[in-house]
């Protein structure tokens, strides 16, 4: 497991804790999309929405729900568009 994915796993664990305590602002589908994105994210490499859709955590999520969750995650700052913007490609916002 790489350093990035270890940090991602720790963040996932703490997000689960936030969710249990009712402090988190993500729905269960948004959480799964975010977890899938953190799983697929690599340094300086954007995550493609097509790759996200085929992730094991999202196999049972419908396309409209998936894209709604994706849009919401961008709005909430968990994911960001690429610079320059490329359709269907996102970066995971890691805390600085």
């Amino acid at each position, binding site marked *: 497991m790489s350093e990035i994915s270890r940090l991602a*796993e720790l963040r996932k664990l703490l997000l689960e804790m936030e969710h249990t305590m009712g402090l988190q602002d993500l729905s269960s589908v948004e959480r799964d999309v975010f977890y899938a994105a953190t799983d697929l994210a690599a340094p300086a490499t954007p995550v493609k929405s097509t790759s996200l859709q085929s992730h094991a955590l999202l196999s049972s999520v419908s396309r409209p729900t998936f894209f709604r969750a994706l849009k919401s995650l961008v709005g*909430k700052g968990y994911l960001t568009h690429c610079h320059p913007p490329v359709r269907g490609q996102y970066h995971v916002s890691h805390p600085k």
Partner: protein
Amino acid sequence: MGYQLSLRPLLRDTLVVSLAYISAFCVTFEFLMPLQNALFPDFASRASLLFLPHGVRVLSAWLLGWRSVIALLPAVFAVFWWVAGDATFTPSRLAAIAVAVIIPALAFDLAARLRLNIAPSARATPCWPCIMGMGVAISVVSSLLTNLAFGSPPQDYIAYLIGDVFGLFFLMLLLMFTFRALRQRARQS
């Protein structure tokens, strides 16, 4: 060549984990222990009731597996040296060091062999109450073995257990709020 390549991440893990362990130890003994002594002056045991380094041990073992033994060793040894000086090399303290670094990794290894699905995985949602449960189990075994090595009085078993469990929970809580604050700051900027 391949050995050299795999040595670098291990050194990085060791540095990060050791810094985290020593920081947690400093906060526990320089800030929380004086507070505990002021709040509970009649509490006879020298054990901390909020032992944050246990959290570092458990989370390191969960994330790194057996690599955590090497990653934790320098910091655990340094902390024993800080507290006991030359007496660190007595058999009881060397046994306590071994217990502190080996038991967490061994516990997660046993859990994996028993097919308990708690290892970090990209395909699964982590279960934080399971990590807490593992923290309790690791603390029970560690405090039994450590107190056996030191021949400590029975009340110390309970004090270590309370300190470890609260330490793990509060460290996770502290990390949760830190990550949350960083995320919110990143969103605002």
